[in-house]
């Protein structure tokens, strides 16, 4: 088969060097903080995509582009670019290239709400449950002046992302591949398919960055393996993953990675507990400073 036809099914993957040296870590952002922020940024992208009524394939692509942006010494640094801006620009850019483009204004309205300290539904922006009084509209509605300046930031960040990724916006997703594999395996139970999609979407948030380290076919196979097990559906009694070009070792790694995402998210929620996760450069600086003071105090 010509390699041409495979491009639709495969992705550019992060090099080991890109995975071990991020621009943020070079700039002195602790790696656990970087992971927390990146993961929260992925959730922010997902939430914004839902509020913008974008289809999940657009959102997933945006999260992958968002994730790629931060990797490697040539990637973006959390001390230079605000996570919220990169998230918004990744989503805007991905939607622009899709069949469902959206406007800067819609994107910025949604992000204003999601980042509102008083009204955001996101636990890492507004920790501590629902407020007693309904928030006042000024806290979550974008003013015209605010819009004009935010729009400039959005469009500039879009260009920064494009340059950082050398304009390669191609992202192949495992979702459709997984459904095809399920049919091939003769699995008809809808619960399995649903669980597969859930695993694939949850993996977008994985701290192991599964989407930039593994090809979509492997993600699909791992999600099927886990889902069939959990739904009690018996698959063919052979090493079926090899039919889909995944070896046992890769499958094993991915299964562990996908299973661990839930635990990671719980740990994050309890670790940050009553604090919000930094979403802009200033907050990242403050958090780094706070940690430094804590260390010196000890």
């Amino acid at each position, binding site marked *: 088969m010509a*390699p*041409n036809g*495979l*491009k*639709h*099914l*495969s*992705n*550019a*993957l*992060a*090099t080991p060097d*890109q995975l071990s040296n991020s621009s943020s870590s070079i700039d002195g952002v602790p790696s656990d903080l970087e992971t927390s922020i990146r993961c929260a940024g992925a959730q922010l992208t997902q939430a914004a995509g839902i509020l913008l009524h974008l289809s999940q394939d657009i959102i997933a692509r945006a999260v992958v582009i968002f994730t*790629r942006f931060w990797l*490697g010494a*040539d990637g973006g640094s959390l001390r230079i670019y605000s996570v919220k801006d990169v998230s918004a620009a990744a989503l*805007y*850019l991905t939607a*622009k*290239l899709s*069949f469902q*483009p959206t*406007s*800067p204004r819609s994107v910025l309205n949604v992000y204003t709400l999601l980042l509102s300290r008083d009204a955001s539904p996101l636990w890492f922006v507004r920790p501590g449950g629902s407020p007693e009084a309904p928030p006042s509209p000024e806290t979550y509605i974008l003013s015209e002046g605010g819009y004009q300046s935010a729009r400039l930031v*959005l*469009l*500039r960040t*879009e*260009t920064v992302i*494009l*340059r*950082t*990724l*050398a*304009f*390669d*916006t*191609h992202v192949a997703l495992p979702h459709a591949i997984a459904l095809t594999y399920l049919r091939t395996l003769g699995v008809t139970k809808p619960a399995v398919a649903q669980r597969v999609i859930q695993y694939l979407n949850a993996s977008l948030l994985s701290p192991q960055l599964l989407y930039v380290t593994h*090809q979509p*076919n492997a993600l699909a196979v791992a999600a099927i393996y886990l889902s*069939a*097990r959990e739904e*009690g*559906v*018996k*698959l*063919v*009694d*052979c*090493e*079926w993953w*090899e*039919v889909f*070009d*995944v*070896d*046992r070792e890769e499958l094993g790694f991915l299964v562990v990675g996908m299973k661990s995402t839930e635990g990671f998210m719980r740990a994050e929620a309890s670790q940050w507990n009553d604090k919000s996760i930094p979403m802009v450069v200033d907050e990242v600086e403050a958090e780094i400073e706070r940690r430094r003071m804590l260390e010196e105090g000890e």
Partner: protein
Amino acid sequence: MSAKSRWANEDPETEAIIAQQKREKEEKRRAKAEKQRQLEARKAQAQQDADSQPPNGEPGPPKKRRRLSNDPDAASDHAAVAKIEQEQRQQPTLLRFPVGEWGPCRHVDNFEKLNHIEEGSYGWVSRAKDISTGEIVALKKLKLENSPDGFPVTGLREIQTLMEARHQNVVYLREVVMGNKMDDVFLVMDFHEHDLKALLDEMREPFLPSEIKTVLLQVVGGLEFLHSQWIIHRDLKTSNLLMNNRGEIKIADFGMARYYGDPPPKMTQLVVTLWYRSPELLLGADKYGTEIDMWSIGCVFGELLTKEPLLQGKNEVDQVSKIFALTGPPNSQTWPGFRLLPNAKSLRLPPTSTISSAGNPPLLPRSRFPYLTNAGLSLMSALLALNPASRPTARQCLDHQYFKEDPRPKPREMFPTFPSKAGMEKRRRHQTPEAPKRGQEAPELDFAGVFGGAPGGDTGEVGAGFSLRLG
């Protein structure tokens, strides 16, 4: 060192080594066969074990355990067994996907500009040299006007589609580089000596029939690939078809290209340079598909035959009347439903449109293409069918009888070479009209004059954009 060759010198040694290797191989084979037998016996055993196990939907662990088992009979040669197993396991070789990487854009300073080639509607193209490798490339600067929506979607699509469209008949996008300013973006592409438009202008005689087939087969081959990847080009014309001195044709300028879907998304009708624009686009269809590219191919085909663009309308109205003059006016049999298109309402067809169509689509008048064979004319007529549904797909086009009959397509290596304008000197601007600008309003067209000659400009004395009203 004697008169003996230095190869012969090694002979005894090599022979010994070969013999040794042969012996070893023989032994290995025997050992392998033995292990194979043992293995099969154990496999059968394991199978029985597995069968007796309750099915748990978890095909993994038992096999792994078996593979790592250290049975007494295999203990002596465990490594060998493992090797055999490995070989067997590798029988179904796993497909390795092409793994790309990403990294930041390089700077345009890595290239030395040599000369200007041309200015298209979407950017300036110049010939340049990659300073590190010395390779000659084409450098296309994207025009990024202060767009209210950020990076223009057309530029993004051009890059996106070119990156994914890797085919021998599609121009190769090497990379995207940036300049000093935020909106300086350059596409680095393989350089090709000619474009077909300039070449046809320069040639004394048109291409030979065998050469036309070679050119057309490559264009349609590239297009077939694009369509198979859900990419629609939307600006095919001779000036966007590049040719190098090895007879290879490359489809270029993806400034209008985009992904489409099924069902097709709503797309702008302001696409394709006027002379190559299909009738359904001219009549205002907003749902269209790959058929518009096939129409353009028909126009390119005609241009290859005669060296002159086939349908040189002065404006949209004139273009429609030129088309109908060639194909005959549409009727509800050759093109069911054309009346429903937005701009068809004003279309007044001559009352003489007697239904004379023999065959669907009807053949074009033979007099326009006197040197074309019957098969060639049937292909041309199919490509220039008014009804998009009657046009062949790129795939069907490649299988057409025209390419199978004599004269056969000329081998690419036998293609004549021509002096390159792009490679040496500045080139004059083409006479072809430009592709429509994105964001323009689709004009409200009044086709009342297509057959009447009242408004519009089909009289020949009227220039583009200026119409002389007589009474």
